[in-house]
């Protein structure tokens, strides 16, 4: 039986390996006595290419055991979306605004029904981490649009 996960992984990694090889050639390889910057990336690219080709072939002829199973894929996918949103909004909106929203969304994704629990946790966690890291430990978290408040 074909192992589609390994085939997909093999294909992606073959692309990465090819990219590494092409990029390394662009950086010039040199000779073993006079290696240029592309020398080592070329070797690693070739290794990735060969090993992932073997993986692809093994997946194709069904010699690898299919182990991939997605349980509740919806929850991790949603959390990933929330994390990407956090990265996108952190600088412009600032930590104090983004973090409680993120915590609310994350808790809802994890299936917490009670809004009281969700809201208290998000406010407590965001404020707690802000005070701990920004005020006490001196890590300047982005203030974003609240900058004119003098935070």
């Amino acid at each position, binding site marked *: 039986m074909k192992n589609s996960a390994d085939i997909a992984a093999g294909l992606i990694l073959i692309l990465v390996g090819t990219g590494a090889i092409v990029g390394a050639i662009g950086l010039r390889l040199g000779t073993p006595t006079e290696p240029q910057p592309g020398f080592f990336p070329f070797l690693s690219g070739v290794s990735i290419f060969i090993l992932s080709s073997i993986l692809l072939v093994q997946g194709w002829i069904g010699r690898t055991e299919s*182990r991939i199973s997605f349980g509740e894929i919806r929850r991790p996918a949603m959390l990933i979306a929330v*994390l990407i949103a956090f990265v996108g909004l952190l600088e412009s909106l600032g930590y104090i605004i983004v973090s409680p929203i993120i915590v609310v969304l994350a808790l809802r994704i994890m299936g917490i029904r009670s809004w009281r629990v969700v809201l208290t946790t998000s406010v407590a966690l965001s404020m707690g981490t802000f005070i701990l890291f920004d005020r006490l430990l001196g890590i300047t978290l982005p203030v974003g649009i609240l900058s004119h408040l003098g935070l």
Partner: protein
Amino acid sequence: MDFLANLGSGFSIALSPLNLFFAALGAVIGTAIGVLPGLGPPATVALLLPLTYKMDPTPAIIMLAGIFYGAMYGGSTTSILLNIPGEAASVVTCLDGYKMARQGRAGAALGTAAIGSFIAGTISIFGLSLVAPTLANFALKFGPAEYFSLILLGLMMAVYLSEGSILKGLVMGALGLFFGTVGIDPVLGATRFTFGLSRLTDGFDFVVVAMGLFGISEVLMNLEVLQLRDVFKTALKGILPTLDDWRRCWRSVVRGSLTGFFIGVLPGGGAIISSFVSYAIEKRISKHPEQFGKGAIEGVAAPESANNAASTSSFVPLLTLGIPGNATIAMIFVALMIHGIRPGPLLLQEHPNLFWGLVASMYIGNLMLLGLNLPLIGFWVRLLRIPYHYLAVLVVTICLIGAYSVKNSVFDVGMMVAFGIMGYLMRKGGFPPAPLILSMILGPILERSLQQSLISSGGDPSTFIQRPISAALLCVAAFLMLTPILKRIWKGNPPGRRT
């Protein structure tokens, strides 16, 4: 006696109030994350690393080391009471530990694990302080060719000992080597694979990568199966094992300690594999193997001793050869580098205070852990009642802040999320994360030693097999890679999976 004098000065350093405080802090954090499933030692060390930037190196490393060995103590508690490993190195402890708890012997199991860990930790620290100076002296003779072969062997071991398919481990190792080339070339100074992003000129930040690979991806995995924890409700009576228990298991503790020590010393070896090996040894030599898996106390004593001994002895390759053997030690490697200390054979000469202070702090830390674990067991059990979702949001929030704090940059937060997603997909596909991060860290050193040895040999690659130490190391590496294939030919099994 040099050794005793050195250890004496180590104790005078470790017993300073500041270092004592950080050893205790490390031990407490370690126990907590060991008890709580969902955040392992590599992610924790990566998270706390940025906070140590402004500290002196000695207390910083003492604390980070405490987290590592403290987690080994804590991990057993969850395995025994919940049948869920709090930490990967405590997986086998579930087999007999949980059965013991069900038979009303949770106290004896917890006590055996803690006392066994303490004895093992002590034996291993003693071994470490004896072996490390000798090994460091030996490694001083290494040239670039030997280093190249040694790193290659270390990476192969990490692949060989990681769980799952060797091929996938190798692919991850190769990918890590490539990722390690991103940024400025260590030899010629050219910029490579940065895609014009100035943020990437220093390469990937290992701390950020580790937070993603081990912290975020773990949360994503756990979200798929939000498990309800059911703490085994039993009156914890008699935490101390009985005299009869001791008679049965003291040999297992000693064997487990020795097994753990030797496996931990190997590059690529570590706590996880040592716990499995020592369990298998105990079962094989036991007079009543049928009791294993049904609540045999030896099945708790041996792996718990082994994982603790191995976590201590895995400092040996780090401190003497400069080769981190597993993901947590790799983070401590990064911590040393950030503090301007180059791990390797010269560390002992250049920073004797750090080395002996660390060793002595481990003795003290083990004693503290015994005090933390046995009398406070009730507190740790209560910690387990915290629902997972609180823990998950806390881990995610701290990872996000932690990644930001490395360089005050949102770019790093994005990187961490990207590596978190990658780590999640890797776990789903059975690709082990440890070889990736190890070869990312070791890649630049591997590249430099490869180039130096090729240049000095006039471009002749046979230099690696003409030099005896290098040749021996390469032979072992080749043997490791060939064993699964040979085994399959022997048994006539299809290739592709490790048997």
